């Protein structure tokens, strides 16, 4: 059934429309994982697009569809509002907006996908940052009738700030502009022009209609001028294996595994998740902060030996020598170490109602480490509308972004965020409320 013969958002009447994916177990066990987020302004069609992806991959079940349908009807809608499938909280349903990140899941025989469906308004920047922090790819929706707008710029900027390696610009609602190549080309040029200012390495453009399904799962018949893949085809095939850093070994120690019984008397394992690089049995390592060196005796997961470990595996590592290592320490290679320091230059997104104050003390959580810090300086606030630096800024309010200098009470072992998202990020915690109030990306040492 070709997509464009389908009328409106009529997802549920054709019993054969949704036969589901054919998952052989072998294929399922061989799938990899892609986490992506969707961003765009209200009404650009995010929920419709997600509904379409979930539906066509058979991830929406009949009773969920029925619940959304009957909720739509009882609200007096003409047809089912697909947003009801994703907008989960009562306040959202009542206000008809999305206030928090909703996570959605679907799989095709090639990949499993985790969607972070993020709210678009400026006042929900922090929620978008939350969704963006774990994503490998971002979908930015643009309404073809409106082209690149301020929100598009803001979302693209956040995407680049959080260093999401892949970006897909979905030029949506092409049905409303007569499938016009000219309109699409103009939007594409405009986007490329301003995006040149950001460090975004991989940008793909797809003209589509989320409502009719054109270029979402199947190639559109209405836009034969477009030679590229459908969105789903791109999502299934975009090369993500290269996103993992296999060069710089970093292993933050999370938990020391010391069995009490006699049976495993000699076992002393360091539990943690590989942040980057490859660790192999026999590798020489150095432990920070002690500077003690040893060799990897074994790597295991729950007692099952592993020859090597790559990110983001959670393993337990034993060393040849009995050296003193505890939570917050980091294992790396003697010839490849992170920066160890207390004066850190970082971009921060402020996430709390109470503004960030220069001179105030906070707690930071970085890898498995925790330290106290003082905000020494606010270099500038970035106006996310104009991307201008406001140097005279005195504090950072909710959803504001700025460049700060902090000093920590003890050294952190970090890399620039552009090199490693795990060792290059930290959160700021308010010591009175215990709330997470800031998300920070390390630039380097303060000069």
């Amino acid at each position, binding site marked *: 059934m070709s997509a464009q013969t389908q009328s409106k958002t009529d997802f549920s009447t054709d019993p054969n429309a949704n036969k*589901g994916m054919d*998952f052989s*177990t072998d294929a*399922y*066990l061989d799938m*990899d*994982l892609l986490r992506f987020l969707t961003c765009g302004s209200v009404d650009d069609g995010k929920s419709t697009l997600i509904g379409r992806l979930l539906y066509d991959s058979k991830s929406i*079940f*009949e*009773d*969920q569809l029925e619940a959304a349908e009957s909720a739509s009807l009882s609200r007096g809608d003409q047809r089912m509002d697909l947003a009801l*499938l*994703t*907008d*989960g*909280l009562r*306040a959202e349903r009542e206000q008809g907006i999305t*206030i*928090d990140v909703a*996570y*959605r*899941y679907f*799989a095709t025989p090639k990949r*499993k996908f985790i969607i972070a469906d993020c709210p678009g308004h400026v006042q929900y920047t922090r929620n978008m*940052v*939350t969704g963006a*922090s*774990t994503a490998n790819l971002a979908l930015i929706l643009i309404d073809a009738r409106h082209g690149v707008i301020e929100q598009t710029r803001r979302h693209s900027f956040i995407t680049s700030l959080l260093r999401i390696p892949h970006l897909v610009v979905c030029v949506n609602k092409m049905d409303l502009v007569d499938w016009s190549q000219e309109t699409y080309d103009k939007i594409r040029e405009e986007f490329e022009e301003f995006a040149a200012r950001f460090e975004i390495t991989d940008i793909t453009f797809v003209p589509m209609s989320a409502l009719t399904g054109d270029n979402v799962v199947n190639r559109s018949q209405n836009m034969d001028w477009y030679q590229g893949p459908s969105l789903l085809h791109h999502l299934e095939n975009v090369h993500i*294996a*290269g996103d993992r850093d*296999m060069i710089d070994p970093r292993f933050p120690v*999370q*938990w020391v*595994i010391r*069995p*009490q019984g006699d049976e495993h008397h000699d*076992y002393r394992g360091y*539990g943690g*998740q590989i942040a980057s690089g*490859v660790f192999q049995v026999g590798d020489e390592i150095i432990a920070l902060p002690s500077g003690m060196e040893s060799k990897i005796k074994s790597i295991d*997961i*729950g*007692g099952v030996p592993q020859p*090597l470990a*790559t990110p*983001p595996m*959670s393993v337990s590592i034993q060393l040849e020598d009995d050296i003193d290592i505890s*939570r917050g320490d980091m294992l790396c290679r003697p010839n490849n170490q992170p920066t160890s320091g207390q004066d850190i230059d970082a971009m921060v997104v402020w*996430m709390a109602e109470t503004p960030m104050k220069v001179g105030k003390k906070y*707690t930071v959580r*970085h*890898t*498995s480490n925790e330290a106290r810090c003082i905000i020494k300086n606010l270099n500038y606030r970035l106006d996310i509308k104009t991307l201008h630096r406001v140097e005279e800024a005195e504090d950072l309010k909710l959803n504001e972004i700025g460049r700060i200098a902090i000093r920590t009470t003890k050294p952190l072992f970090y890399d620039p965020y552009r090199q490693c998202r*795990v060792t290059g*990020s930290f*959160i700021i*915690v308010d010591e009175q409320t*215990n*709330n*997470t109030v800031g998300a920070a990306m390390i630039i380097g040492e303060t000069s």
Partner: protein
Amino acid sequence: MTSATEPTGASSHYKLTHLKALEAEAIHIMREVAAQFEKPALMFSGGKDSIVMVRLAEKAFRPAKFPFPLLHIDTGHNFPEALAFRDKLVEDIGERLIVHKVQDLIDRGDAAEDPGPFPSRNRAQIPTLLDAIDKYQFDALFGGARRDEEKARAKERIFSFRDDFGQWDPKNQRPELWNLYNGRHRMGENIRVFPISNWTEMDVWQYIMLENIEIPGLYFSHKRDVVKRRGQLVPIGDDPFGPRDGETIINCTVRFRTVGDMSCTAATDSPASNLEEIVAEVAAARASERGARMDDKTNEAAMEDRKKEGYF
């Protein structure tokens, strides 16, 4: 660029399947909780999700013992098979199990049986859980909930904060960034932690198959006495789970997609008798897993309301 960083011949080791990625995330979460909290516990219901959590805990902490006990909030409405399974599992893994009974609270007058013709003890689980938290001073509880189960869950953080009354405030959730979990809390506050938040029902089944994890026989097709009630196949057992007036017992081949209380878990008419067949059935399923829980149907926002009250 990638090929240059991957030594030839080793690339198969470098590939990380999505199940391995989800496993790694869950192990990381469990270790964070062990490190950041004084008294965690793992809520063990006997269902497949909590059985998977036990396997993940083994991966996180073996060869040592778990740094927390298992906690079963016993509604008294269990399938006898599920209880037998629970006890055997606990013995096999050699970990500590705490059982806290809804019936004890009802007897004390601290929890009430729901009114109505088909009382469920879902509501009574809430004070029982809070009582267990209070008695043992738990500050973190692992739950096996997944975000694909239900819309309110889809928005819940992995570290989900509860106030002194065990309540969840969906509008005021802590931002949760990267893999940095902020577990700081005051005395009396506690959190629910969902290590398998990002797993789908399919992932759970595939993982059970991949890891060869033993699960209760209730999940596989078997002959059972059921009645048709409100369009669903309801299992029949000893009092108070006998047939109601006008209901006729039918014996059919069924299985359960979730193993909850006998009073609120419907059976599916299914011949799937092994994991492969279950997986095939899940792949072809037309009704979501929570659809088999009678309690969620009550209203659109049912789950959100229960969560706000301190439900898992």
